[in-house]
């Protein structure tokens, strides 16, 4: 495989890169990335999980919300290298082997989804909220989701969905990011950047998943 000729010809090929390792949706993940890369770009472009979205790139909309060590954060504002050693949960990791996560179910039940672009971010904010407080009151729900903009729904059905999922009584509701906890395998591939990715010890291109377009 190797580096394709048409990549990064604008700069020196030995661009500064950092090796990091983190747990992503319960899978140990290793990547080598430039320092300028945001966590969102790492997840979307290097790992290839497209569920987290870029709505603004400056932390003003929440569409990029992921969970890092149990906390909801704007992945467009986090330096990618800071994912090192963290437990990261993205929308792709919410679903379980046995089916949808309870909040995914309530969102469907209560019609909280229209265009769907803000949905992953809102689900992640909700999951992080309920992890910290399984029985939030209305104010706290509002506070937790106020960093996620939605232009379609007006938030009301989203609110009903979250209320319907609380109080959370079942511990298995929360993903712990435990590596033992197997989750659905997702497509991974390295995208247009020249960053490389190592997943579970296999090198990019070495028969480790669909979609590597070399």
């Amino acid at each position, binding site marked *: 495989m190797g580096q394709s000729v048409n990549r990064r010809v*604008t700069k020196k090929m030995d661009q500064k890169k950092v090796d990091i390792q983190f747990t992503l949706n319960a899978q140990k993940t290793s990547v080598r990335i430039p320092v300028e890369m945001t966590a969102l770009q790492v997840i*979307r472009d290097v790992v290839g999980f497209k569920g987290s979205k*870029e*709505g603004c790139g400056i932390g003003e909309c929440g569409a990029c919300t992921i969970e890092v060590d149990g906390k909801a954060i704007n992945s467009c504002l986090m330096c990618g290298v800071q994912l090192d050693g963290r437990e990261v949960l*993205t929308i792709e990791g919410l679903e379980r082997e046995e089916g949808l996560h309870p909040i995914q179910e309530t969102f469907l039940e209560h019609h909280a989804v229209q265009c*769907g672009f803000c949905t992953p971010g809102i689900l992640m904010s909700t999951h992080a909220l309920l992890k910290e407080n399984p029985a939030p009151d209305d104010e706290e729900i509002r506070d937790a989701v106020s960093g996620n903009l*939605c*232009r379609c729904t007006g938030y*009301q059905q989203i609110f009903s969905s979250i209320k319907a999922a609380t109080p959370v009584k079942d511990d298995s509701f929360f993903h712990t990011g435990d590596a033992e906890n197997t989750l659905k395998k997702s497509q991974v591939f390295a995208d247009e950047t020249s960053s490389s990715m190592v997943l579970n010890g296999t090198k990019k291109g070495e028969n480790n998943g669909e979609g590597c377009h070399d």
Partner: protein
Amino acid sequence: MKNEYKIVGKSIRRKGALEKVKGAPVFCADLKLDHPLCLRAVRSQRHHALLKNIDVSKAVKIPGVVAVFTAADIPGINLMGIINKDQPLLAMDKVRSMADPVALVAAQTPEAAALAMSAITVTYEDLPMIFDPEEALAPGAALIHKKGNLLCKRTIQKGDVDKAFKKAHVIIEKTYRTSAIEHTYLEPDAGAGYVDDDGTLVIHASTQNPHYDHKEVVSLLGVTDEKVRIIQAATGGGFGSKLDLNVQGFIGLALYHLKRPVRCVFSREESYLASSKRHPFVIHMKTGADAQGRLVAIKMRAVCNTGAYGSYGIAVASRAAVHGTGPYEIEHVDMACSAVYTNTTFCGAMRGFGAPQIALAHESQMDLLAQALGIDPLSIRLINGLKKGSITATGQTLTESAGFNACLEAVNPYYKDALETWVLSEPSPFIKRGVGLGGMWYGIGNTGVQNPSTAKIEMDRTGRVTLFTGCADIGQGSTTILSQIAGEILGLSPDDVEMVVGDTKYTTSAGATSASRQTYISGNAVKDATDKLVNVLLTQAVNRLKVKKSYLKLSNGTVYDGRNPDKKVTFSWLAQRILDRGGALSWQGYFDPETVPLDLETGEGVPYATYAFACQMACVEVDTLTGEVLVKKIVAAHDVGKAIHPENVIGQICGGIAMGVGFALMEDFVPGKTESMKDYHIPTFKDMPEVIPIIVEDTEPSGPFGAKGVGEPALIPTAPAIVNAISHALGERIYQLPASLERVLEASITAGHFNK
């Protein structure tokens, strides 16, 4: 709300929602492509200038840059426009705003593209800049377009307003202003494309109208229809701005020349700079009423700033003129609305097409008249509300489905209660509570023009049904409700209605997802197609079951005798029979609302076949010390004819209200100053009121199962209701949107609340 149907009228799980809660839908920024080139538009550095030269020689030499295109590279007609074609894809002889694209860069990486953009040198010869429509209309003003700075003027004249005003008991004459608004859909404009094995240019686009995109790209490239395929990708909202070509032309051009995969994704900043905006309006309105509160005359002069290009400006001006009376019967009418070119970002379709702006005026006028006459705001609306038999400003008699008064009656108990109890209790000595009403009407479909929809339904040999529609679902849920309509007629669960949506290779045009038209128009087209299919099935079933057609029913993939359900035959049996005998199981449906074009001077005609109506009540708390306004509750009664999917309707109402809260209080797009989401505010969860939605169903016989529409109606009454509520709270009125901190505090000070 009674519902006699099995599938229609039920809030089933939306098609596509499951994928969305998993984060699975593929938006154009997500689409997997093989080393796609990054496309970036180089935009004008001048507001208004002649384009003397573009020097791309340095840019093309930059490593990683594959091509730089200018107008000379456009093989077809370099003009686009959804109504009139006045907008070049790439600037030819001049630029008319800072958003105008002058060149298109195709590069291997975003970094190379950025370097190329900086290396392009453009020589301009400045022309006088015009930002204000009044200036643009002044004699001797520099011409932005050769044909002049007036895009259009829509006039409506009925009766004799001058005479009627002389007899009026009270006259209110005021000026209202609204600002430009940015759609702020969560997904920035995006598209991606590649060349298929057979040479077809395939463009995936975040769009509201794939078939229009197709026509426009074919025209730009000067190729045959088959050469281009537009696929509507997962689309993260549009609200009118994804009706114009944002990225599709760029992608088509690059594919045409380079024949390799490309992607064009706007940053939020570029979306703010370059995509269309809501037209800002200046509205002079004069309304007269008799002593009993009956409106007798209305005169309106409105000017909207359409920016550098026309886009939907003609539609906005038309709609504003037609809707200017509000949902009220007024005998004498003199309306004029002009759309004017200026050197700002072009304005186009934005949820409501001028109706939300005009509603600020007509609803404020109603409250002012009520106050002058000593009548309460609800009563004056009841007195004048349009109903069956009313005649509109364009001389159209409303023969059906005019549920405005029903909406007022639905809101009435909440209104009384709010006035009698809520408003009187003060949460703090500095908070003033107010309650306000907003009424609206909204014509479904495009104004006085043909805007048909088509659809196709097919059954295969096994009895499986597929519905083909060009109707773009941008989150409002059209795919679901169209499957419900087909499902209801066929007796099939919507899960068993396979949908092929928004792919110009397979679907035919459903018209744009705009003007709240898809439920009514595409719904009817789907109904038409499905009825035809069912007719064929029933005819064959009669043959088999030996029972009169009128006794036959459909359910669960069978046709059966309604009097004796065991007597039945399956779809698959019927399908095979029909096909073996050379029959047809593929049926095209069509619907075009019955309209009559408006007379160019008097505006007389039938602009729409049906209208939605609504009334909203807003409860607000005004902080008299700081100018902050909190909308506590909105009760929203909407006559939608028939709610095919009630929760979808509620979703539209809540979403529209959110947009209305933003329009009323915090959204103000200032071209040249508003750059990103840091300086443009749409409501967050904490800014939302509690919404009590009330669905009113005044059946529209010409609608599918009686349905009309709700997408835009949801937003139109909100800002007027809030402004009326603020006025009620303070005793001082605001005539300009947004009712910002500054304006509300000023009103509070003027009203004497500040120094208490």
